[in-house]
């Protein structure tokens, strides 16, 4: 199931590539044959001309001699005899006045040719020319040659039209496509599950897969150019930057909603959610460009295949944003309910796998909706005994009870997407130590419930931000709303905070206050605008690692998780800063 959509894309591209080449070489061959035919014709006409000149040379001399002694009638007799002789395949006529018009052998429709043989000028005497006419059909060697070429040309043309052209559109799958798909499946399975054959080097396979994907990307992404890349980067930058103030706004709204209830707050929340969806989409496109090459056809990016700690909540938000975009022509209602603990729930998996799984489950739910405009897909995320419970509810057609087992075993129900999706999802969740269950009522809808073990051994994940009551908190963030957010929170608990919007300012402060570093807590944004260094580099340079918290939107990136693990720095996902409590201690 997971490779099905990708295989379809590959199949199309491979077919297109092979078909184009077959057509190109066939047409090139036709053109070559046509050119050779024309060349042969030209050679034949040249040979014909040489033959004519060879045969007419004695007659020319005869004519000149007789003309010079004014015995012209004899020339006509000579030409008459020549025309009547069996050897001449052409007819000659003496034009006594005028100049040759057809200086080369010229074809006349359908089977005639004409050539004006010029008679030399002697001692100022001019003798006109011989008008030579002939029939192509009388030259058997030329006709045979032409027939052969034309036959060859016709056969190739017919072959191209009747055989190669359809073949180009419908490349035999067993011959070309299946071996390639099988090969790619082999690579993918090996990388995803680590259960490949022992003689296959995973690094080589990974490199090979990267190469194949890179080629496919190059083949399909024809529109991409430098300007588009820059625009994409700018968009991603904007998306990234807008998420911080959005988070701050959302948190402020949360706090405000505790004090008052107003419809306006709901409108604001909805607006913020929409903006976040847009930002998520833009950012996701930038991070995973290949996913968007063909709608609903997902192709993984390679980094996403690496198993790491993944925060499920933003990932679900991302998928929802994608689906809203994907189904914009026939939208349905998608809602997400999440309890506050579940927001900070991490699992250990390859993000692409879980994304694909969630995407397929949502696709199935969407497919099951008979009337999209009244269809609802409700996603509920909660914590249940150290397991993350993810429930997808739809009000679609439902699955008969006796078919549920079959669906879980990979048998497809037409109205319920590809059965392989559910079967594959179940298998994958089980490899994570979880489970997948389905409950359904025909005509009412289906609930798909995933129970995934929560990751518990994350060394870089803080349960809270610990601050001594005498500590100073240094906040570094280029987003002023975030700075205000942190300041308010710290002020509320009586902690002094110093705010910096650049590393450079913070650097200067640190240089001047080195003696205070033991009583400083750093809350540092990982990525600031306008600088090459990042927050981790800054912390590694100056910070006491146990008091350093790196805040970032890239908390799920494998390289960053590995880096903070190595640096022993705390990592806080920017989307979860509101969920991280501030703890004061005075020991």
């Amino acid at each position: 199931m997971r490779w099905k959509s990708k295989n379809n894309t590959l199949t199309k591209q491979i077919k297109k590539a092979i078909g184009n080449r077959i057509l190109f070489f066939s047409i090139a061959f036709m053109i070559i044959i046509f050119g050779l035919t024309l060349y042969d014709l030209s050679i034949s006409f040249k040979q014909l001309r040489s033959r004519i000149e060879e045969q007419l040379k004695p007659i020319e001399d005869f004519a000149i001699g007789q003309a010079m002694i004014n015995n012209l009638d004899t020339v006509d007799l000579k030409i008459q005899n020549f025309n009547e002789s069996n050897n001449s395949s052409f007819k000659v006529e003496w034009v006594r006045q005028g100049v040759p018009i057809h200086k080369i052998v010229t074809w006349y429709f359908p089977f005639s040719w004409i050539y004006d043989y010029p008679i030399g000028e002697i001692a100022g005497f001019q003798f006109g020319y011989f008008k030579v006419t002939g029939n192509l059909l009388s030259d058997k060697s030329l006709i045979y040659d032409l027939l052969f070429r034309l036959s060859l040309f016709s056969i190739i043309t017919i072959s191209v039209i009747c055989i190669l052209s359809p073949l180009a559109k419908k490349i035999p799958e067993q011959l070309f496509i299946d071996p390639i798909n099988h090969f790619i499946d082999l690579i993918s399975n090996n990388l995803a599950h680590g259960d490949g054959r022992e003689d296959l080097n995973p690094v080589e396979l990974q490199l090979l897969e990267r190469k194949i994907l890179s080629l496919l990307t190059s083949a399909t992404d024809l529109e991409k150019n430098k300007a588009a890349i820059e625009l994409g980067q700018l968009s991603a930058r904007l998306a990234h930057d807008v998420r911080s103030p959005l988070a701050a706004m959302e948190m402020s709204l949360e706090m405000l909603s505790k004090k008052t209830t107003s419809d306006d707050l709901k409108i604001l929340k909805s607006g913020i959610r929409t903006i976040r969806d847009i930002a998520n989409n833009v950012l996701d496109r930038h991070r995973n460009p290949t996913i968007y090459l063909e709608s609903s056809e997902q192709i993984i990016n390679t980094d996403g295949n690496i198993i790491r700690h993944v925060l499920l909540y933003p990932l679900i938000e991302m998928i929802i944003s994608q689906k809203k975009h994907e189904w914009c022509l026939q939208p349905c209602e998608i809602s997400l309910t999440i309890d506050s603990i579940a927001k900070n729930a991490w699992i250990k998996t390859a993000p692409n796998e879980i994304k694909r799984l969630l995407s397929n489950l949502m696709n199935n739910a969407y497919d099951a909706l008979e009337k999209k405009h009244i269809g609802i897909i409700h996603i509920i995320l909660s914590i249940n005994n150290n397991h993350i419970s993810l429930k997808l509810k739809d009000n679609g057609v439902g699955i008969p009870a006796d078919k549920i087992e079959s669906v879980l075993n990979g048998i497809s129900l037409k109205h319920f997407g590809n059965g392989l999706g559910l079967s594959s999802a179940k298998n994958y969740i089980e490899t994570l130590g979880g489970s997948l269950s389905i409950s359904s009522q025909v005509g009412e809808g289906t609930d798909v419930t995933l129970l995934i073990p929560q990751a518990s051994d994350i060394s870089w994940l803080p349960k809270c931000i610990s601050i001594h009551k005498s500590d100073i908190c240094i906040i570094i963030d280029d987003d002023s709303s975030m700075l205000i957010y942190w300041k308010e929170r710290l002020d509320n608990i009586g902690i002094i905070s110093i705010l910096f919007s650049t590393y450079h300012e913070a650097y200067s402060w640190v240089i001047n206050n080195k003696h205070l570093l033991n009583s400083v807590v750093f809350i540092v944004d990982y990525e600031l605008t306008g600088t090459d260094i990042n927050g981790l580099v800054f912390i590694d340079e100056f910070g006491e690692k146990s008091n350093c918290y790196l805040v970032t939107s890239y908390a799920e990136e494998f390289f960053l998780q590995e880096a903070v693990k190595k640096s022993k720095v705390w990592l806080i996902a920017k989307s979860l800063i509101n969920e991280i409590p501030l703890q004061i201690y005075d020991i």
Partner: protein
Amino acid sequence: MKIFHILVLFLSLISAAHANYNHIKLAIFDDPRPDPSCNENSQQFVNSYLSGINTAITVASEMGFSITEREFFHQNNLTSIIQQATNAKLWNPDIIIGLSTSNDFLMSKAFFGDQVILSISATDSAIVNLPTGFYSLGIPDTQAVKTIIKFISNHYPNSNLFITSAAESKESVDFGDLLAQSFKKQFKTKSVIERKFLSDDMNNLDISKFMAGYQKNDVIVIMSIGYDSAIELMNKISANLRPIKPIFITSTDNWGNNLSPKNMNGNYDVYRIDTLSGGEDTKDYKLFLDNYKKIYHAMPKDKISFVTYQAVMSFVDALKKYPHEGISSSTKQNLLNSYLLALKYNPNWYRPPYYMVYKIENKNEIFYEKIH
């Protein structure tokens, strides 16, 4: 003293003019090949051709004329003719002799328009239209036509005439036309049929169609370029007319030879009339023979030696007998003037005196009669 100097200068000019006048550059422009009908070596024939000229140069030398000779022999194709004509002109001769066929002689007008040209044997009636410097030692065909009509009326008074001419030979065509006109004019009750053939295309000749209209006892006149092609046509006609035994008359000169031809087969009577083979009873021939024997210590092998000897002697004798009065600017002009004077006094200057008739019986050529 002054008068003496003027006299010396005058005498010097006369002497120089005389010296120039006595030295002649002679170009031989011809295609001397023996007729294929005779078993004769080509080089032997060329030697005979040149030995006659050499004999004449020796005689001329004794007469006070120095002649420098150069041959410009060409082959039987247009390219060769043009090439040698160009070479001959570049040499700038005072007189050109040779041009044994009427075709060559008529064509030479295009190449040698301002030269003194002597043909040794051209006979076409059309040569009278050539420029004044052109003269042929051959008896014009107007005379030959009369001779043949005379011969036919004497020996075959009741026969009609069937004339065949080689179309590529202007001489043959004109001769045939003239003979037909004259015969019709003289014998209004008799019929004349004319046919033309191409010597090179003889193999493709439809002989039945060609001989359509022939009646038994018709005299068939064969006008061809060479004796060989005449024999080939006679063989074909006789084979076609069998069992009729046709009568042929041909005027091919065979370069003055009267050797029995080869390749002759079939059952027919042939009379060959020519002018070049005669003249052995003349003073000119006696003088030639004496000088030839003096030089070569042998008898001439071919009659062509006498023919070329006569050609050279014709202008040497003209210079001797009719020297141009006054001082001319060039030898060429002097030659022309003397020759014109000679022709003025004798329109048949150095031409053969009569026709010789040979009858070919049992493939042997036998002298039949002379016709003056």
